[in-house]
């Protein structure tokens, strides 16, 4: 007999915890980037399709110093964005390396107990990160986006 059903909460515990505390849900304001840092953005998805994600990343030299996101999507999407932002920001690594260290979305799903039918949402998050990496590659080190206040 399955004594774990019905579960009191349809969201897995890691998702519920992250969804309830979206600490990294914001824009990185240019003034919060250190002098000489680059502010890059990466965006993917469309609201019409149920998921839209936008990352704002502060990169100083090659090092990632600040990660924020905004997202429209299901609780799994928002929780995964928060988890990704937390992991990236705390890595203190080069952005590319930090993204590589995250692993593929299937691994995020495993860590957060996200059901397989939501994997498509996580791919949108990955696409947003890829877009940020592409922008980073195309933006020179001193892009004039930072302010020295």
């Amino acid at each position, binding site marked *: 007999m399955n004594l774990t059903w019905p579960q009191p909460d349809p969201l897995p515990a890691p998702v519920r915890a992250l969804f309830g505390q979206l600490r990294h849900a914001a824009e990185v304001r240019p003034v919060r980037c250190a002098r000489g840092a680059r502010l890059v953005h990466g965006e993917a998805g469309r609201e*019409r399709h149920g998921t839209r994600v936008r990352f704002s990343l502060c990169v100083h030299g090659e090092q990632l110093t600040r990660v924020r996101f905004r997202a429209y999507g299901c*609780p799994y999407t*928002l929780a995964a964005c928060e988890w990704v932002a937390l992991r990236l920001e705390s890595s203190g690594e080069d952005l590319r390396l930090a993204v590589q260290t995250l692993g593929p979305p299937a691994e995020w799903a495993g860590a957060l107990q996200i059901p397989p039918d939501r994997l498509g949402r996580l791919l949108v998050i990955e696409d947003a990160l890829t877009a940020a990496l592409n922008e980073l590659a195309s933006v020179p080190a001193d892009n004039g986006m930072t302010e020295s206040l």
Partner: protein
Amino acid sequence: MNDDAPVYLDYAATSPVDARVAAAMAECLTRAGTFGNPSSMHLHGRRARARVESARAQAAALIHVPPQQLVWTSGATESNNLAILGTARAAVRRGRHLVTVRTEHKSVIDSCHRLEHEGFRVTYLDTDGEGLLDPQQVRTALRDDTVLVSVMHANNEIGVLQDIEAIAAICRERGVPLHVDASQSAGKIAVDVERLGCELLSFTAHKIYGPKGIGALYVAQSRRAALQPLIFGGGHERGLRSGTLPVHQIVGFGVACELAMQSWQSDAVLCQRLRERLWSGLRGIDGALLNGHPTRRVPGILNVSFAGVEGESLLMGLTDLSVSTSSACNSDSDEPSYVLRALGRDSELAQSSLRFSVGRDSREQEVDLAIAAVTREVRRLRAVTP
């Protein structure tokens, strides 16, 4: 219920069983009670049969029909299936065309889809932007080979009421039977079959503080021979629905109907007041849009879209409330409500809607808590949206 339980505002999905209903049901379960099979000829069986027929009279009184014109079913889904499939299959020599509405309950839509697989044609009528069907559309849709029109009384998602009397008059002119799904109206507003003018009407117990698993189909005397059963084996319910009658559920349904007859008017006043209070609070949220006609509706259902907010996140963020979203939460397809789409809401708005439904036990404090919780969560989710 303990104090930590979420506020229940989902009475359109189901209602708690009234304690008086539960007590009557309990009398029919154990050895000391009326546990017999109503088809048995011995005393136990006859006692059970008496309870079943008493309940039939109670249920029939709720919709103002003779008791012998009610058939017990497992609920409104089965009633709708029996009415639609049973009528169409029995009338196959006369025609293969049905008329219904895009905003009907899935049990009607899927029954029609089933018939399409069997070679029938179905005309799905559109409503206006407020969910109302122009009865003249029915007139236009009727054909010489139309064998049934099926239109719901109150919509389960948005609560709007269709003009059944006008539709019935048109059907009568053309000699086409009308089936009405009254799951969301019977026991909540006045439902008088003679006045409505339909030949078939579905209703169910669990929306009116009765048990789940029991419903009924009203079948006009003139239609009885023109209905093909779906379930065979014993010829119960005059051959229209075989199977041992669940006495406890039937008795519960009967008591629920009697209680509804006594209190539907005061319930309706309470529900309308609470619904208006709820909308009055929610309409202050930027981007809140009422779905469905503002006044032609059952008292207890309110459906609101919140522009720019994802429906499932909103629902999951409202841990203090038990309400429904129109979106398909468990599907990656994120298929928005077909009812709201039929009203012309775009997929984002359809996906961002919540259905609130109040009932006999709802209180002002609960409505106020709901307003505060929804306002807070919509703001939180909007703040994280790109």
